[in-house]
């Protein structure tokens, strides 16, 4: 297996899909000549040219609309948002058009499009550039929402997303682009959407984490094991919608305790949804109220110390696990 950064794993996925299907093209701000703001599209324009890798003006609503139209006409666009914060400008196209088209056209027009880019906090980019939007997009029927946390997941899930006939919200994390991991070789490695992955097996407490909180949860699990001899299972749903609730419920049935770690704000979050579904399906298996670790209810502060205080951390996750384990 090759060891790749998440950035390069995404690049491989894009390249392989462009080669595999002539309808696939990449479009967004700076994706072509500049190789992408975060270099995810590095080398693609040089290799495939203007037709497959398209630079756009700073017009999120406009190029999202071009993408939706192209998808309706039979192409498979991959639209990069420089960050998901800018997608809010384009959200009319995503929510009102991409998500609704199949339904409102009575099944005549499918929209096989991927919107992708970094989601959540970065390094001191403050309130308008640090938002985690998974709960926002997951709230609308018609969209799939994908959040990889490893290089292999990033590659396998992006390829599946491009091949999917529905609009897919593909949420990456700027802090994680440089994380390395093993990626199976060969250009037909895919991971189906809607399949959770148990990142660490354990028996005493389940942590459901996604994207940036997965490495935090794994570190917390090691520390808890060493300090309290409590065995923590870390479940990464990988796809928020459709959600693999069976794997989560199966884990809770084993451990009887659940902590959810997430980078979004907690009110009406994905963690709130998981909490409800676990309560609905596994109430009789719970030994403690479910705990969440989310980002504080505040616009993201710019100051480094306040930013750290607002975000989920290993320490906060450990405290939540201790709570549900009555330690």
């Amino acid at each position: 297996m090759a060891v790749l950064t998440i950035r390069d794993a995404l690049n491989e996925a894009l390249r392989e899909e462009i080669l595999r299907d002539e309808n696939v093209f990449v479009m967004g701000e700076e994706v072509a000549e500049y190789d992408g703001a975060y270099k995810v599209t590095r080398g693609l324009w040089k290799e495939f040219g203007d037709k497959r890798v398209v630079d756009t003006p700073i017009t999120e609503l406009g190029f999202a609309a071009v993408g939706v139209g192209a998808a309706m006409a039979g192409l498979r666009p991959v639209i990069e948002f420089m960050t998901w914060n800018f997608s809010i400008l384009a959200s009319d196209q995503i929510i009102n058009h991409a998500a609704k088209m199949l339904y409102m056209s009575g099944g005549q027009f499918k929209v096989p499009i991927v919107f992708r880019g970094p989601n959540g906090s970065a390094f001191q980019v403050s309130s308008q550039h640090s938002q985690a939007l998974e709960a926002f997009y997951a709230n609308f029927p018609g969209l799939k929402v994908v959040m990889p946390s490893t290089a292999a997941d990033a590659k396998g899930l992006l390829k599946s997303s491009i091949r999917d006939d529905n609009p897919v919200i593909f949420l990456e994390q700027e802090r994680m682009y440089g994380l390395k991991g093993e990626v199976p070789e060969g250009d037909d490695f895919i991971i189906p959407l809607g399949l959770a992955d148990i990142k660490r097996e354990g028996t005493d407490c389940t942590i459901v984490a996604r994207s940036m909180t997965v490495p935090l949860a794994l570190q917390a699990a090691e520390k808890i094991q060493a300090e309290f001899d409590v065995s923590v299972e870390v479940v990464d749903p990988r796809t928020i919608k459709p959600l693999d609730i069976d794997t989560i419920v199966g884990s809770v049935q084993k451990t009887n305790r659940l902590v959810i770690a997430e980078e979004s704000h907690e009110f009406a979050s994905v963690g709130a949804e998981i909490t409800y579904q676990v309560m609905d399906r596994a109430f009789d298996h719970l030994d403690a109220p479910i705990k969440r670790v989310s980002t504080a209810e505040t616009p993201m502060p710019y100051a480094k110390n306040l930013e750290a205080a607002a975000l989920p951390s290993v320490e906060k996750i450990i405290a939540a696990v201790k709570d549900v384990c009555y330690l």
Partner: protein
Amino acid sequence: MAEKFLMPKLSPTMEEGQISRWVINEGDDFSAGDTLAEVDTDKATMEMTALTGGTLLKVIKPAGSTAALGETIAITGKKGEDITALLAEASSNGSEKKAPAEPKEPAPVAAAAVASTAEVSAPVATSTSKAGNGRVIVSPIAARMAADNGVDLRAVIGSGPNGRIIKRDIEAALAGGGSSGSGRVAFTPSTVVGASAYNDEPTSQMRRVIASRLAESIGPVPTFYLTTEIEMDNALDLRRAINASVPDEQKISVNDIIVKVAALSLVKHPYVNASYQGDKIRFYEQPDIGIAVAIDEGLITPVVRGANLKGFVEIGAEIRDLAAKARSKKLLPEEYTGATFSISNLGMFGIKEFTAIINPPEAGILAVGNAVPTAVVREGAVVVRNIMNVTMSCDHRVIDGATGAKFLQTFKQMLEQPAMMLV
């Protein structure tokens, strides 16, 4: 705003506490950090301090009464506040907490609690939302396990917040109670008619913990015993020589030498300074030796840490200090928990040889008898030597026969030839 003051957790293994005395009276003001009451826990008398300032509006649990963890023992707040609703809650809380001990008749307890607050009894009578309904707080999985296994939840004491019965409490109840200081099943002592008269004294916290700890030991811990005779003459000479050269307050006992020799031997035998932990064996880097000290109500094992690195005089002073604290029940939790091995010495009672019970999760305990002048054969002649018998109880899950024997060999060698301590 007026608040319920709940029985806090004052020792790591505490499940309930007895109010020894209230330091301040009803109506007194207090500040954060002030001592409100002294509480007898399972191990020691602890000071219960205030986390915030306020006024003691009402004492729910007077001196001498016992309260479970999280049970309301007083109402605090600002002078003149209306506390009738809290009193009503506290009285219902009282009945629900008492239920495990007296499952058949929770009502009189509630009534008693209400009666003790007679001066505000009128509103209490109308505020009966929860009073006397004996509601049991239980986690879903614990409730299901109890139902599946026919466990009466009213007979289980919850170890979770607010007395919530959680999974481990049911597991403990199913295992026969008493494991790891969590939920235990209440019992009703049988009363025999027509036989001997008897006196019932309430089981003290310490006696309960001793019972549960020792039962826990003899049950799951497969123990075996190794005995050896040690010729103590050289060690006694060493002690005499030291005591002849130090001031009175620094004089050492044989036990101080034994503790240091045990610590030095433990360092050389890691399997004895270890603990069986199910999926792993924990090896301790430092020998921390619990010394069994008899006190009026039972026994406690203050810990001498790292005695391998300490001198005899230092060890002696430390043990004297810990024992004095133990007798006045002033030991801090960190002074009596976390030993890696224990020593019980009954030599001063004239006991020649005995076996001691392991204090889990430690893997061993050394039972030390007195050194008795004994006729022995040395080089073909009968001579008198001071012989001391020691018996080590070993947890066979960690210590095998030969491992334990080698440890005792080292221990014996150092006592018989104290110069070996320097090797």
